[in-house]
């Protein structure tokens, strides 16, 4: 390992580790009682050892030491890929759907709860995906629409006793209106300004929810929201039961998620979807080709908001309680992390991202504290090593070399 390249690599490693220690030690080691080195050195040694091992493995891989494993593995995965390609996509979809339907029958309460969260986040992720992935508008206040949807249903249910199913479209419509109100002044801005302005709007919505005591009951939230009902016609009058159990919630949100998936898929393949992509890739060119860019961006924004609002209404019904606590910036960042991790613009990617970010931490419960820490790091690293995400989106149509 004495090629100039590897020497440079290890020199870089040494400098980086020195740097890391200098940054780590003051945070941990300086106590009012005195200076301490043991704890920080222990953490540092672990990090250094892990990264050294990773570097060695990477170097060995570069030199082809693992070829005897990786070559056959690659061949197997290629063959598998070919075999799975032969199975029609529809069959996979039916299989996945059947598994999703059967899921509550073979699992217990805790798993239902996690599955419901995953599905809610899938809806949110897909909605944000329309804005960020398809239209390329970075929205950091997406959770505001989730909040609008949730509060719409909460207020209508508590004050007017309206049914969930009636409120669902109303929540979607309110969110769309909110999306237009927020989108209209902001969407003319340059992309990176848009990010910070949407962040500002997200915070404004949260602060309003927190302080408008007469309407939202402030930080105490709204209690006593009704779950969705199931209605039928019997003996000349309408009968109903409340869908209050976890399984029933699961099926409601599964239905909502499937509708969202189908809708987003259809949007992606429509003329509008193409227009989104055109705006994302090159706004000037899109405008020249006759795309109404402001209109299209507004549409993307409103559509994303609708999905957020629907998920929000469900969230309110599921929790039977809403408070501004649930709609913080961290939630927006989390949904964004899902989209980025899964692959911007990719529907299966977003589903994978939601699974990874919601279900995995449930498995590693002991590391709960480290969750956002790891997400942040992963998000930054993804951009370096795999900017297109775990399951990159398939490009629609052909296009010239892309510049950025």
């Amino acid at each position, binding site marked *: 390992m004495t090629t100039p390249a590897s020497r440079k690599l290890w020199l870089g490693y040494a400098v980086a580790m020195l740097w890391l220690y200098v940054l780590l030690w003051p945070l941990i080691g300086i106590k009012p009682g005195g200076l301490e080195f043991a704890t920080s050195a222990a953490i540092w040694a672990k990090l250094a050892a892990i990264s050294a091992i990773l570097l060695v493995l990477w170097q060995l891989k570069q030199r082809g030491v693992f070829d005897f494993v990786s070559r056959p593995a690659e061949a197997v995965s290629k063959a598998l890929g070919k075999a799975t390609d032969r199975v029609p996509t529809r069959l996979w979809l039916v299989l996945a759907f059947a598994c999703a339907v059967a899921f509550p029958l073979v699992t217990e309460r805790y798993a239902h709860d996690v599955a419901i969260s995953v599905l809610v986040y899938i809806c949110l992720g897909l909605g944000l995906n329309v804005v960020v992935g398809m239209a390329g508008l*970075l929205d950091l206040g997406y959770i505001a629409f989730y909040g609008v949807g949730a509060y719409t249903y909460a207020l209508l249910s508590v004050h007017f006793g309206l049914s969930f199913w009636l409120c669902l479209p109303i929540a979607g419509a309110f969110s769309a209106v909110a999306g237009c109100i927020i989108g209209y002044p902001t969407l003319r801005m340059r992309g*990176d300004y848009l990010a910070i302005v949407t962040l500002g709007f997200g915070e404004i919505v949260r602060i309003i929810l927190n302080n408008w005591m007469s309407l939202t009951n402030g930080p105490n939230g709204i209690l006593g929201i009704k779950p969705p009902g199931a209605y039928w016609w019997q003996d000349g009058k309408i009968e109903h039961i409340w869908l209050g159990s976890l399984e029933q919630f699961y099926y409601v949100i599964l239905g909502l998620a499937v509708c969202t998936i189908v809708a987003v898929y259809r949007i992606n393949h429509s003329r509008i979807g193409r227009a989104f992509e055109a705006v994302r890739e090159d706004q000037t060119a899109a405008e020249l080709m006759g795309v109404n860019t402001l209109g299209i961006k507004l549409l993307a924004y409103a559509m994303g908001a609708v999905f957020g609002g629907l998920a929000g209404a469900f969230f309110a019904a599921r929790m039977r309680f809403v408070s501004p606590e649930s709609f913080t910036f961290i939630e927006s960042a989390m949904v*964004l992390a899902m989209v980025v991790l899964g692959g911007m613009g990719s529907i299966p990617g977003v589903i994978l991202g939601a699974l990874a970010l919601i279900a995995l931490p449930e498995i590693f419960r002991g590391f709960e504290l480290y969750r956002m820490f790891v997400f*942040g790091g992963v*998000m930054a690293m993804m951009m370096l090593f795999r*900017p297109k995400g775990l399951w990159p989106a398939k490009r629609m149509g052909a296009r010239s070399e892309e510049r950025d």
Partner: protein
Amino acid sequence: MEVFLQQLVNGITLGGVYALVALGYTMVYGIIQLINFAHGEIFAAGGYMGVILISWMVAQGYPPFVCLGVALVLAMGYCALLAMAVEKLVYKPLRSSSRLSVLLSALGMSIFLQNGLMLTQGVYDRAYPGEMVQGGFEIGGAMVSYMQIVIVGITVALLVGLNTLVFKTRIGKAMRATAQDKTMSALVGINASRIISLTFAIGAALACAAGIMVGMYYGSVRYDMGFVLGVKAFSAAVLGGIGNITGAMLGGLLIGMIEVFAAGYISSEYKDVFAFIILIGVLYFMPTGIMGENVDDTRV
């Protein structure tokens, strides 16, 4: 009138702090057109380094002003190193990729640093040693604490120092040249990488000083305090005209004043909203800001 004067004093104190943080945003944006989301976290890290160093030195029995001075210098150095590390690690390799990627990795870095602070320092407020600077005096009915004098003094010194650095020295000239045209400045022998790194370091050092002063002013620091303050400082940078150093100072002062007066005369619950509304209003009606400069039509 007394209330007005009092608000004015508070507004100047707060505005100076915003100006210091806004400078980091504006300098980085001016040179590589990136909203450095992690900047707010650097500010918070500065506040923590301040509390860590000052607590330690107070426990060793040094006099308060020595503690403050030494802590300020050391913490600024620390934050400069931190910002340079962040820049090297995630921004530099992405220099040629799309702006959306860089923005996302900046956001990821911000979450990473914020939670790193939480993990090492805990989720609760960490209090500054109380006996640092006490007392104050009265002018026309308004209370001015010595703490505020110290804060304004340090802020002014740092702002003057930065102005001298940027407009009077060779390094400053190189920075301005790089911000104007990277290729041309590289052709005349300016090492753009080094200048960008330096810009991050300077911005971080200023944010760090702001963090320490906010910590002293309010008495405590919290791991997530960089988020809202970061957005406000960015609003200040936009208000002044992004990329413009004098503009950022002016914008910071204005945002601080507006916030304090709005909290005093309109509503203190909604005080955080005003900065956002100004940000949106400025971007909509006057996207080049007050001093207007450095607005190119590049998009994410």
